[in-house]
Each structure stands twice: as structure tokens, then as C-alpha cells.
């Protein structure tokens, strides 16, 4: 591809959606500091950044400004008001030379400290991300193990929660009297952030009992486990309803998925 053809891809590259050969070709141009593609991509970054304007307007918490300014001050090197300088006449030449050397040294040290602070901040950010990632993987692994144990247990009762809307995927449940109820599903549609799914046990008598509140992840998957908070023999059915974020004390919509238990 020549630069003219690649120019059509600048914004997609800036948006980070470009893949495969197209990405590789454009990156090859950028790697050799192509005089057309390099400024083109820079401009595209500006264009793509404007998409931020699509975000719904939101006010940051009042306390945030103070936190940021305090943290900045705590990081040191904040400019202070300059003090009046003593008259030159009081200092001999050697003192000026010493002062100049000290100023140079101080300037160098401050610059070094600035660089070190920047590197430290980067390292802290990387460590924070790595820690979060590690914790997320551990949580995921633990959850996966728990769900597998419930699914594999001979004491578990496998159930299929059938969707009322035929276009929706089936939800699987594995009901174990002690280990809990595991719920799994794939290809679930995304949900608005103000809504959630809620699992209910429907008892022989009395009102439905809330078991769990959950949402599909970004890949449309559900994998959760929740305690069984009533005797399994008492449960007639499992039902999933859509509720406002945070769940409801009792279902406010008709069940979207249902499975008969006993």
C-alpha cells in the first residue's frame, strides 16, 4: 500500500482497531518516519480524541481536585515564591563561583529527581496494573474451580433455564444442596448499566427468594456461584428476571428464564 491508500486507515489506527496486514503496513511506514504517514497519524489521533465528546457529561466529585493537588504537592519539587536576593556587593568572586556551581548541581539534581519521579510513577502504575491483573486471575481461577466442583459433583442437579424469548440463549444451572448453585451462559446480549439480572428460588409456598444479582461480562458470558439459602426440596423452580441495578426485594418483571426443579 502506498501513503495515499494508508491515509484512509490513519483514524482506525489511532482508534486501535486496525489489525493484521493493514496495521503492519502502516506501522512499517511509521517506523521509517514516513513524512506523510507520521503527521497523518498524529492528526488522526487528534480527530479520534474528539470522540471523547460523545461521553455523557458528568461532574467529577468535589473532593477529587483536592486529592490531586495534595498528591502533586506531596510528590515534591513544587515552586515556591522566590526570596529577595542579597546584594552582589556582599559576596567575593569565589563565593559567586561556588554559588554558580551549587546552582548547577542543584539544577541537575532536580532534573534527575524529576526523571526519577516520572520513572517511579510509571513503575508504580505498572505494579498496580500487574497486582490488579494477578488478583483478577486468581479470583477467576478460584471461581472456575468452584463452578467446576459444583458441575462435576454427583449430588448436583443440572437444570436448563429456558428463555422466554426464543432469541435469547439458554442459561445452565447446577444446584448443589451445600456447595451452592452455579450459573453459566454464553452469548448473552449486553445490558445497560442501570439494569441487572437477578436469580430467584421459587419455593413451594411463599414468595420468591433472591439468590444472586449478576450481569453478563463484556464477552456475553455468565459464570457465577451463589449459596443455596433454602432446602433444595423446597425449591419448585429457578427464575431469572431483569431488575434495576442493585436488584429488587421481589421480582418486578416477568421471568426471562425459568427452570422447573421439583
Amino acid at each position, binding site marked *: 500500500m502506498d501513503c495515499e491508500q494508508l491515509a484512509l486507515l490513519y483514524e*482506525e489506527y489511532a482508534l*486501535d482497531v486496525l489489525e493484521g496486514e493493514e496495521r503492519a503496513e502502516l506501522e512499517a511506514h511509521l517506523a521509517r518516519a514516513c513524512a506523510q504517514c507520521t503527521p497523518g497519524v498524529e492528526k488522526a489521533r487528534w480527530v479520534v480524541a474528539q470522540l471523547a465528546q460523545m*461521553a455523557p457529561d458528568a461532574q467529577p466529585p468535589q473532593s*477529587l481536585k483536592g486529592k490531586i493537588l495534595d498528591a502533586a504537592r506531596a510528590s515534591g519539587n513544587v515552586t515556591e515564591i522566590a526570596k529577595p536576593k542579597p546584594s552582589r556587593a556582599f559576596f567575593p568572586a569565589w563565593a559567586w563561583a561556588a554559588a554558580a556551581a551549587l546552582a548547577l548541581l542543584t539544577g541537575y539534581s532536580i532534573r534527575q529527581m524529576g526523571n526519577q519521579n516520572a520513572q517511579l510513577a510509571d513503575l508504580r502504575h505498572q505494579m498496580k*496494573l500487574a497486582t490488579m491483573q494477578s488478583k483478577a486471575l486468581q479470583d477467576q481461577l478460584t471461581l472456575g474451580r468452584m463452578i467446576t466442583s459444583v458441575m462435576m459433583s454427583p449430588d448436583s442437579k443440572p437444570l436448563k433455564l429456558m428463555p422466554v424469548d426464543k432469541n435469547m440463549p439458554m442459561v445452565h444451572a447446577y444446584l448443589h444442596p451445600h456447595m451452592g448453585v452455579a450459573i453459566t451462559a454464553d452469548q448473552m446480549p449486553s445490558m445497560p448499566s442501570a439494569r441487572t439480572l437477578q436469580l430467584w428460588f421459587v419455593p413451594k409456598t411463599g414468595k420468591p427468594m433472591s439468590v444472586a444479582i449478576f450481569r453478563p461480562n463484556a464477552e456475553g458470558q455468565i459464570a457465577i456461584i451463589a449459596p443455596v439459602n433454602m432446602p433444595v426440596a423446597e425449591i419448585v423452580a429457578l427464575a431469572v428476571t431483569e431488575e434495576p441495578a442493585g436488584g429488587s426485594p421481589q421480582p418486578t418483571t416477568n421471568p426471562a428464564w425459568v427452570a422447573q426443579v421439583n
Partner: protein
Amino acid sequence: MERILQRDSAALETLYDRYSRPVYSLVLRISQQPGSAEEIVQDVFLQIWQNAKRYEATRGALGPWLFTVARNRALDFLRLKREKQRRREDSADFDLPPSAVVRPDPEGAMDQSRRAEKVRSLMSSLPDLQRRAIELAFFDGMSHSEISAAIGEPLGTVKSWIRGGLLRLRESLEEARS
């Protein structure tokens, strides 16, 4: 930026007053969690305070640079969140904050607000699925293939929607600048 380079904390305050709101709005839209959005915005402004020289090296307009840094940070967070695939029962985390209080526009905000209007108007003129595809790329950090799978449209269609939409955005912003 000159004053930030000189470690003038009042300059950081000015920068915050001018950009915190659009930056926070963007990060909240991506992360969907007010607590995390606050933390990310704090990181972004402190990064500028600590790495102002890097900005000097790259030049360009400050606002878009801030948006890019903020988006990258928020998408890092989102990717980690996706990996977790865990239960999300903390409903408070998903609540959006109360509606924003209108503050007087800072100096120079008129251009920014006009530009914002231009972007919103263009995006709302796009067909729903085309706009959705661009939003998934920008706010959810999805690739062409991921968007294709998410909205159930062929990869080629998704590519052409995104390309077409972005080129229209480029032209529209160029017109507005000239």
C-alpha cells in the same frame, strides 16, 4: 504546560479546572464505575504533573492528548475488569453520578464546546449500528473482529462502517477548523 514544567501547582489547578470534567466524563463512560473513574482521573493528572516533559516532546493540542492518555488508562482498567469475569454485585459501582452541575465555561472552552457539538451532531446522524460500532471501538477498546462478533455483522461491514464514520468525522472537523 510551561508553568507545570516549572512545578507551579497553581498551573495544575488551572489545568484541572479546565479539563477535569470532560476527562472524568470520558473515563466514567469507559469504566462505568465512579470510584475507579476517580482513581484513573487522579492518575492521569498526576502523570501530567510528573511527566510534563513527555508532553513537551510530543507537542500537539493539550486537550486531545489528555483524552488519549485518559482513554488508554481507562481501557487498561476495562481490560483487567473483563479478565476478572467475576460477579458484579456491588450495585453502587454501576450507579452513574447525579446529573452534573453547570459551571461557567473556562476561557477557550467555547471552541471545545462547539467542537463537541460538531462531534455529537455527526455521530447522531450516523445509522444506529454504525454509531454503535464506533462507540464499541472507542469506549470499549474492541477490535474490528470483536465488534463484528459483538453486534453480529460481517467483519467487512464493520470495517467499512468504522472507516466511513471516522473519515466523515475527519472531514467534518477539518471543515470546522478551516
